[in-house]
């Protein structure tokens, strides 16, 4: 666990954020929407309380509602995906962990890390780590 602030932002630097406490529930998501939104084979998110996250440059944020009530926010200058805001979870953001500075750890407990929507994974690439792999959110 880290006690210092977690920092991150987009590629061009227009959007910066600071998170004052460790993130929780790190999910490597293989769903088709995450793959298309990020252009990656899977996308890793951590959950942060909205109160713990301070954002600057938010005039550069563009939003795209990828499913009902779920808005993906990215930088309109460089296209960097930053976070997801969900109406169903108004207290938190889901932060795209590739946007953390210098590959920082989100500070979570490894017991809170898993692959989700494993059933949607591309057939041709397998991470073979020993993390749990669940269908959907794994409820």
């Amino acid at each position: 666990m880290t006690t210092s602030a977690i920092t991150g932002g987009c590629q061009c630097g227009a959007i910066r954020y600071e998170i004052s406490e460790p993130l929780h529930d790190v999910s490597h998501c293989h769903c088709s929407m995450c793959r298309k939104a990020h252009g990656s084979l899977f996308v890793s998110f951590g959950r942060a309380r909205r109160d713990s996250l301070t954002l600057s440059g938010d005039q550069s944020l563009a939003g795209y509602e990828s499913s009902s009530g779920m808005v993906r926010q990215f930088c309109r200058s460089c296209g960097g995906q930053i976070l997801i805001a969900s109406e169903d979870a108004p207290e938190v953001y889901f932060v795209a962990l590739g946007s953390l500075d210098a590959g920082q750890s989100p500070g979570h407990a490894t017991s809170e890390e898993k692959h989700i929507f494993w059933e949607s994974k591309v057939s041709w690439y397998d991470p073979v780590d020993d993390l749990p792999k669940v269908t959907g959110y794994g409820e």
Partner: protein
Amino acid sequence: MSEQGTNPPETITGGCQCGAVRYQLTAPPSEVVHCHCSICRRAHGALFATAGVYDKDAVIIDNGEDRLQAFESSPGNERLFCSRCGGQLFLMVGHWETSMFVVLGSLDAGQHPGHDRANEKHIFWESKVAWYDPCDDLPKVNGIGT
């Protein structure tokens, strides 16, 4: 590990999340790289980015070319994304005249790109985040490995 897909379709299709930009690929990539560099991580908001090297002639943009927005992520190199949904699609390397990268998360339905697995590797492994390792058996090289 999955090997090369059986009977990959002749034409592979893809696009961004909102569907504004659509493309087809008429030939498989010569190489597939999983890139862990800090620029790819930021551009995609992911722990690494996966892209294929394609002949420019094999990449046909069917729709939404006017939606493509460019960001020069390093001198001479442009990343193209959809201005509506932010989906990353292409990387044009300045000194490459006849080839380009297509980002493979943008392929429809997780299609196999049709490459030979012998031409797939992790690059810029030295820049990988310390806290996650995909643990696969692909080659891992520093930088671009040459």
